[in-house]
């Protein structure tokens, strides 16, 4: 691997490390209801929201109330997006006169955006009007991200509180996450992106005559405003089909770095918030380092595979020094693309700046595995933290027994109830991924969408269900997902992967909140320090690896071996 790869990954990681504390402290202030710098501006607005919505901000909810609020809010969101998509031709801001979105696609897109997946089985510029993009899709870029943050904060409260009945108010957390966290950062980032050449326009697509005299249509739109929240909210749904590889979304290495920082900013900060809200800063850092360990390993493997390139190409005379440039933008190159792919799949973002489908098999394995591990390596906004919470509970339970006490997590006993809910939240995505892709590769409807045969085709189908169940939204491409089969099944996987995971996790939070806190002693299981960091990372890898080893060995693993032997698919 070239030295520049180490440098790029290293600089990015150090920036994330530097952001973690300030973001974490700010998040704690926002969700503990403390005063922030933005209070004078946003305070009145926040109170107005509560008044209009009829919410009493002092009234907290138990975990069932909290979960119900999320479900009601999200189902309403799906219906709202669906309505706008179907009615877009009759609504304003449709300069290119796009027709109504077809029903099945509209339904799957609605689920996709409300679940923070942003799986796009369509080409945005040719399907969605400006109004749909802004009022329906970008709106849920904010709201689904805010929902994720709210769940994470509720989980932290559940850990921090003792003998409590409530874990916060969803309506307040949703409002504060949107107003105090997502809006201001997105606003500033959008302005910066615009300054770097990302377009922001309500004009219809530009019709130009090229130097050679041909007519070309260049789609425009309010891109910068959507781009910022696309990364910050780990949504990933691009304005354009080409997503962050499109020069109007991601014009330069500088914007590329900014976008990657936006993806990890809140998830990394939340580990600090976990530490500070529970009064165990070292625990927060142990979680941070476990995530970092997995991130660096993934980025390293992926960058190495992509910079080494494809021996088959090289045999045809392609310059080996360039690495694997198939499906990559020249302005990013193999390292930036590999890093972006790792970041976007560690987090449940799903934005892409290159074609994962064109990665070497090993390079493509990394994004796939990242999602299959549960997107807990920093993870989606909120989703990463509440996801790793499940693994923390499992690690504490298995290893906690080994110190000779009933396992306890920060003073709370981990018992049958918590283990049951933790296993449930692991099982749901596993079921969706394995059963979904198994159904895809043995049914005619599923097979007909695959662009490639052999192990590569398997990877494509596997990636689609993995991405949907993990609420990632990135695509391996090479798969025509806009068919009835995939639209319906993937939407189900997205819904289950989001809400059938959130509900048991909130149940765990509620159960922990209600428990007594036990005193700490020398006999208490330590959840900080390097030992716990390695244990946590180990549990995540072992659980993920044991679940997906067989199918991965028939997909990318065998493909890598075959590529070395000169075969391709």
């Amino acid at each position: 691997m070239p030295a520049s790869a180490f440098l790029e990954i290293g600089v990015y990681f150090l920036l994330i490390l530097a952001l973690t504390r300030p973001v974490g402290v700010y998040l704690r202030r926002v969700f503990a209801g403390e005063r922030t710098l933005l209070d004078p501006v946003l305070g009145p607005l926040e109170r107005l929201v509560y008044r209009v919505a009829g919410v009493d901000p002092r009234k907290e909810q138990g975990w069932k109330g909290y979960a119900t609020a999320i479900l009601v809010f999200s189902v309403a969101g799906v219906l709202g997006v669906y309505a706008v998509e179907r009615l877009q031709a009759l609504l304003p801001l449709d300069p290119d006169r796009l027709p109504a979105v077809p029903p099945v696609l509209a339904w799957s897109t609605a689920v996709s955006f409300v679940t923070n997946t942003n799986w796009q089985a369509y080409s945005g510029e040719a399907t969605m009007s400006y109004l749909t993009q802004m009022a329906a899709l970008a709106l849920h870029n904010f709201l689904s991200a805010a929902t994720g943050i709210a769940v994470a904060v509720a989980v932290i409260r559940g850990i921090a509180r003792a003998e409590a009945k409530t874990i916060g108010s969803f309506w307040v957390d949703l409002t504060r996450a949107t107003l105090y966290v997502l809006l201001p950062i997105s606003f500033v980032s959008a302005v910066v992106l615009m300054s770097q050449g990302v377009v922001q326009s309500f004009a219809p697509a530009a019709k130009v005559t090229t130097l050679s005299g041909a007519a070309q249509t260049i789609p425009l739109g309010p891109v910068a405003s959507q781009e910022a929240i696309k990364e910050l909210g780990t949504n990933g749904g691009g304005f354009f089909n080409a997503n962050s590889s499109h020069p109007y979304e991601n014009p330069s290495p500088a914007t590329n770095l900014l976008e990657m920082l936006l993806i990890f900013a809140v998830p990394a900060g939340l580990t600090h918030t976990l530490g500070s809200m529970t009064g165990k800063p070292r625990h927060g850092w142990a979680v941070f380092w476990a995530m970092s360990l997995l991130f660096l390993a993934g980025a390293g493997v992926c960058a190495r595979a992509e910079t080494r390139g494809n021996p088959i190409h090289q045999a045809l005379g392609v310059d080996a020094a360039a690495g694997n440039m198939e499906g990559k933008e020249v302005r990013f190159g193999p390292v930036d693309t590999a890093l972006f792919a790792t970041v976007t799949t560690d987090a449940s973002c799903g934005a892409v700046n290159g074609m994962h489908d064109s990665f070497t098999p090993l390079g493509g394995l990394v994004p796939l595995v990242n999602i299959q591990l549960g997107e807990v390596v920093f993870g989606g906004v909120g989703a990463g933290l509440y996801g790793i919470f499940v693994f923390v509970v499992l690690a504490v339970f298995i290893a906690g027994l080994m110190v000779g006490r009933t396992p306890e997590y920060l003073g709370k006993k981990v018992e049958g109830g918590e283990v049951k809910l933790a296993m449930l939240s692991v099982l749901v995505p596993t079921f969706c991924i394995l059963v979904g892709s198994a159904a895809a590769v043995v049914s005619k409807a599923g097979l007909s969408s695959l662009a490639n045969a052999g192990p590569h085709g398997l990877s494509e189908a596997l990636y689609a269900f993995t991405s949907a169940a993990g609420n990632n939204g990135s695509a391996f491409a090479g798969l025509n997902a806009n068919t009835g089969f995939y639209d319906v099944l993937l939407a189900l996987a997205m819904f289950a992967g989001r809400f059938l995971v959130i509900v048991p996790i909130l149940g765990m939070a509620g159960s922990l909140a209600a428990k007594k806190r036990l005193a700490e002693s020398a006999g208490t299981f330590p959840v900080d320090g390097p030992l716990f960091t390695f244990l946590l990372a180990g549990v995540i890898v072992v659980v993920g690896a044991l679940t997906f080893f067989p199918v991965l060995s028939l997909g990318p693993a065998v493909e890598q071996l075959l590529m070395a032997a000169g075969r391709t698919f």
Partner: protein
Amino acid sequence: MSKHAEIRLLDRALLARAAADSVRKLHPRHMVHNPVLFVVEAGAVLATLALLGVGTRGSLSFQLQVVLWLWATVLFANFAEAVAEGRGKAQADALRRTKTDTVARRLVGAAGDEEQVGSTELRRGDRVVVEAGQAIPGDGTVVEGIASVDESAITGESAPVIREAGGDRSAVTGGTKVLSDRIVVEITSEPGSTFLDRMIRLVEGAERQKTPNEIALDILLAGLTIVFLLATVTLRPFALYSGGDVSPTVLVALLVCLIPTTIGGLLSAIGIAGMDRVLRHNVLAMSGRAVEAAGDVNVLLLDKTGTITLGNRQASQLVPAPGVAERDLAELAQLASLADETPEGRSIVVLAKERFGLRGRELRELKARFVPFTARTRMSGLDFEGGRKVRKGAADAVDGFVKAAGGHLPEEVRRDVARIAGEGGTPLVVADGGRVAGTIYLKDVVKGGMRERFDRLRAMGIRTVMITGDNPLTAASIAREAGVDDFLAEAKPEDKLALIRKEQAGGNLVAMTGDGTNDAPALAQADVGMAMNTGTQAAKEAGNMVDLDSNPTKLIEVVEIGKQLLMTRGALTTFSISNDVAKYFAIIPALFVATYPQLEALNVMKLATPESAILSAVVFNALVIVALIPLALRGVSYRPLGAGRILRRNLLIYGVGGLVAPFVGIKLIDLLLVALRLA
């Protein structure tokens, strides 16, 4: 039970019985309690049907061997449980033999008439007479008389104990034998629920219920089983897509290798063996839950007297009055204590002999008469012929005695008395007529080895609190000497309860021992309450453990057993899960090497053929259960270290070890199978 005939770990008769039981346990009604093994059994049935019926593909010998080893896996797991139960059953049989139907002499009416009834007809509230040589027909309380009782049937301890009406030594147990005297016992239990009955059910495991931790672990194992079920069931579609196929037999083999059969098979054996270990320390835990709770305890309340210190104070120093030689004081102190049979008195004689070689003398040759201690005089000593009187006793009592004889208590002696009391000792002043000779320093003596034990507990994260009726000064001095972390002085019974509540409110789990009726509320409130077998019925019912040896420090051993129990479960779970990595590397390339020859690269163990690879993994998986039975029964080795160090150590042994061991084991089995031409 330690003092009963020791039941060996691998007794031949026990093993035969366990082998038979392991077949009997194949019944699905039994298997369904263990989700992991139930899946294995279902898989074994499926593979058997595949073998017998249609669709047999590949070598018959291979399929037959896989099927046999699948059944062996189930049998081995059953065997582990049966061996663990077998030891309890043997003990239960021994206990049952002592539970013969005795004839009871029931008192009827107020006149004290007797009637003969069978012991099983006795009801709560009946009064029975028991005389020397007779067995006590049921649990009860002595309401009249005093007797020495042989309790060896229950405790294994052959020395007789005294049981008397009133006070804290009134409880008797059915099945024990009166050796001397006559007592009247009021029966306190209904037939079938006596202590002996309960004990039999406990050791037999009939009342065994899954503990909270066991339930949680069961859920985890069931969850993992479902994960692996999904991974294997979906493998067939993936294989078909890839242009190959996998037979049901092989899929079952893969599934059985992956699901946590090691811990699933040994889980109940670990629990039973843990209870058994507690029992072999002569402690009767009323439930597995109580033993687990002992492992969680982080505050230990211990009574000072009898637990931390020897029950009695002992003379440790002689402080002469001004103008008196120490040897003269020793002589007078010895005289005053010659006939004093109290432990304090004897310790004075011993001290005099140690310091000055003074030998004991007969009262007769001294022509003296012993004056015993009474609550009124608070002194004891000798009256010689001719009117000489030697006394020892409390300072104010002796003060009165010397004044009556025309003397006085010197100021220096008063200061010595105050100093000794201040240091936590008991001062006894010695006087010869009107002359005060000096002071004897009686001290609480801390039992040997207590400081080390408390250090061990501290290392485990357990705080010890000493409970005593002494004043705070005395308490502090003994606490310092014994090395306890904290103490509660001038404690009344209700203070104990309050302290437990306070500790629990602070998030601590509290264990205590007790014997008196006064202790019952505290025993009930504590997370672990261990009652002494010598204690009252109320205390025994309030606690969740009874120590048959009545040795309060045994709580420490029970705590260690509780910890060991949980550690063993955790260690084998970790081992079981980390084993899977190697099994994947054995089986996955074997399954698909025909479709993708390049997958041979994953065959890192270089196993001979696909069939030998799969078979080796299955065989390893079955044999590892048998290999770990001794560990499950004995428990993993336990050292009193902090949680961090224990975790590091166990992760290394069972996590990393569990990762490496199967690579070696599977390879060896593969070599063996090839050598034997079995694959």
